[in-house]
């Protein structure tokens, strides 16, 4: 178990960024750290990962192999992706996971300098070096930044598979972490860590306006929440349900007035 004990951090001539953080991290589910811009999330992550030293306090129980993804994985690297992953795995004393990069949907050249990669592909190399080395502790700073939808889902899957034996600490601004199974949610405020309620996942919705003979009856037949205004039926539905809903409404004799984002 990784223990963060009374960690303080203050940068030169600045206010304290971390003011006594106590935290115990264990395998079994990712720990999601929230907090506003500049609240010290990245600083805490760097200290937990072992690439920054706290001004006071200490981190104990850090496993021998650590995977760390910085919040801005540099895109201007000279080594090719394959060589970089091989070198990083050798530094950790492990072997790189050969299939992980492909699993994330990496589409760039693997034998040419990484400086030519797009932001998303560079981020995938960063994820592969952090997650593909069998690390006992994985620290990911904004891992969803720049990822496409498919790679974001893959990342959630990989984190779910790894969480049984790996301690995972992650920050997120995209709302994706809210959907991680078994996640523990924390918030960093005023330099201290406190428990936070799990954020509600943001579900996109579609607004549908129907013109019907009898809007109330149609609303009951459709069985979805909605309201009647000026003889028109206003509905909200998740995108995957909108087509069957519209089909049923048309069969009930309604005409579609508008469909758009809610």
């Amino acid at each position, binding site marked *: 178990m990784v223990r963060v004990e009374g960690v303080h951090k203050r940068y030169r001539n600045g206010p304290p960024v971390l003011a006594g953080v106590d935290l115990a991290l264990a395998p079994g589910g990712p720990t999601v750290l929230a907090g506003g811009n500049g609240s010290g999330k990245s600083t805490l992550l760097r200290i937990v990962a*072992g690439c920054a030293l706290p001004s006071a306090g200490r981190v104990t129980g850090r496993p021998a192999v650590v995977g760390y993804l910085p919040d801005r994985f540099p895109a*201007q*690297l000279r080594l090719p992706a394959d060589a970089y992953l091989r070198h990083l795995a050798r530094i950790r004393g492990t072997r790189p996971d050969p299939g992980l990069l492909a699993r994330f949907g990496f589409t760039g050249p693997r034998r040419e300098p990484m400086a030519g990669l797009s932001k998303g592909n560079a981020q995938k190399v960063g994820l592969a070096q952090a997650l593909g080395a069998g690390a006992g502790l994985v620290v990911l700073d904004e891992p969803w930044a720049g990822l496409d939808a498919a790679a974001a889902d893959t990342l959630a899957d990989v984190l779910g598979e790894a969480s049984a034996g790996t301690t995972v600490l992650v920050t997120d601004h995209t709302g994706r972490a809210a959907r991680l199974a078994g996640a523990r949610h924390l918030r960093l405020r005023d330099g201290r860590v406190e428990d936070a309620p799990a954020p509600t996942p943001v579900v996109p919705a579609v607004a549908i306006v129907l013109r019907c003979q009898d809007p109330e009856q149609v609303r009951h037949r459709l069985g979805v929440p909605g309201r009647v205004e000026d003889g028109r039926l206003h509905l909200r539905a998740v995108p995957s349900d909108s087509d069957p809903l519209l089909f049923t409404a048309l069969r009930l004799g309604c005409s579609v007035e508008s469909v758009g984002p809610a």
Partner: protein
Amino acid sequence: MTAVAVARYLLADAVRAQRVVLPVVLQVAVLAVLFGGDPGRLPEPWGASVLTLYPIAAWLALTVAHTEDPVQRDVTVAAAGGVGPVAAGTLLVALASDLGLAVLSVVWPVIVTPYPAPPSIVLTACWRISRPGRPVRRSGCCARGRGSGGRGVPCWSAPSS
């Protein structure tokens, strides 16, 4: 072991960075100018090339140590499990590159000058390079006009007596 792995990684990164080329090119240019004509009998000419070897080797070592992107350095430190192995690996690469520069500076005049360079002189030069602050002492060849054949070749080392 981790330090060696870090050194291999840093070396692979550094050889792709163009900025390590500049110090090497400068030392090669200095050697080419110094030993282009008739510099005289060894070990005196080494006394001139070693004057640029020290600052250029320091420049090369700093360049090698700062080739890696700072954020990338964080990832490497986390992977290596601390600053120690990364510092040791950086030191290894810096030492190896400086050693290459020193060997080049010692061997170049041995190859291009027509005078005999017995192993004892070469070894003495290597020993002197490893002890900064003690320049290669003049053998007296300039003062006596031997070696340079009295053709007006400049004497590089400062008069000691």
